[in-house]
C-alpha cells in the first residue's frame, strides 16, 4: 500500500488531551471528505485508544503518547497510538467486552468500540515497555 500523507503527534497523557487527539486525527482525515458516520467512528475509536494510554498505561504518572496517522491509496487510513507505559499482561482478557481494571465508572468497552467501529485492530504490548494499538479503516468512495 502506497502512503500518500502522514502526520506524527506527541502529546503528554493529560486527560484534557483526549479531545485534542481525536480532533487532530479528525481534522487530518477531513481531506478525504469522509461521511459523518465514518468520522464519528474514527474519532470514537481514537478517543478509546488515547483514553487507554491515560487511564491504564500511565495510570499514576504522566507520560508521552505517540500518534501517527497515515493516509494510503484506496482511501485507507491508519492511526497508530503508542505509549511507553505499563503494558498489558493479558491482551486477550483486556480485549474482552466489559473487562476492566479501571473501576466502576469504566465500562470496559474500549477495545470493543475500536474493534466494532474500525475495520482492523492490532494490539501489541509488552509489560514494562508499552503498548501499540493500530487502527485501520477503508473509507467509502464518495460520488
Amino acid at each position: 500500500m502506497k502512503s500518500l500523507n502522514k502526520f506524527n503527534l506527541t502529546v503528554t497523557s493529560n486527560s484534557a488531551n483526549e479531545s485534542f487527539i481525536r480532533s487532530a486525527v479528525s481534522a487530518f482525515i477531513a481531506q478525504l471528505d469522509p461521511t459523518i458516520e465514518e468520522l464519528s467512528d474514527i474519532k470514537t475509536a481514537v478517543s478509546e485508544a488515547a483514553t487507554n494510554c491515560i487511564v491504564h498505561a500511565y495510570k499514576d504518572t504522566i507520560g508521552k503518547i505517540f500518534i501517527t496517522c497515515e493516509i494510503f491509496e484506496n482511501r485507507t487510513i491508519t492511526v497508530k497510538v503508542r505509549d511507553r507505559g505499563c503494558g498489558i499482561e493479558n491482551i486477550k482478557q483486556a480485549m474482552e467486552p466489559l473487562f476492566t481494571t479501571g473501576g466502576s465508572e469504566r465500562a470496559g468497552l474500549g477495545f470493543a468500540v475500536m474493534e466494532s467501529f474500525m475495520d482492523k485492530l492490532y494490539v501489541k504490548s509488552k509489560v514494562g515497555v508499552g503498548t501499540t494499538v493500530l487502527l485501520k479503516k477503508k473509507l467509502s468512495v464518495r460520488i
Partner: protein
Amino acid sequence: MSVRTESNERVLTVYLDGEIDHHTAKGMREVIDKSINELMPEVLVLDFKDVTFMDSSGIGLVMGRYKELKKCGGELHIINTTPHITKVMKLSGIERLAKLGKAEK
C-alpha cells in the same frame, strides 16, 4: 461540557451538553449524583440532545448512574440520542437496563 438539571417531585431531568469522554465525564457525574442523592427521583431522564460526541466513557457514566439510581429504586430513561450515540449505547447493551427513546411531549 455543561450539565443542567430540572426536577419535579418524581422526575429528575438532566440535560447533558458538549462532548462526553473520560476527561469530562467526572464533572458530569458529580453534578448528577448530587441531584440523585438530594432528590431520590423515581425517574432519571438523561437528555443527550446537545451531546456532540461520546465514547465508552459515556457508557460508564450511564451505567454508574443506573447503579446509583437502583439504590433508591429509580428508573432510568435515555432520550434524544443522535445516531452516533445510539450506536455506542447499543454496543454496551444498555437498552436492557434503561429505556431509550425520544422526549415525551
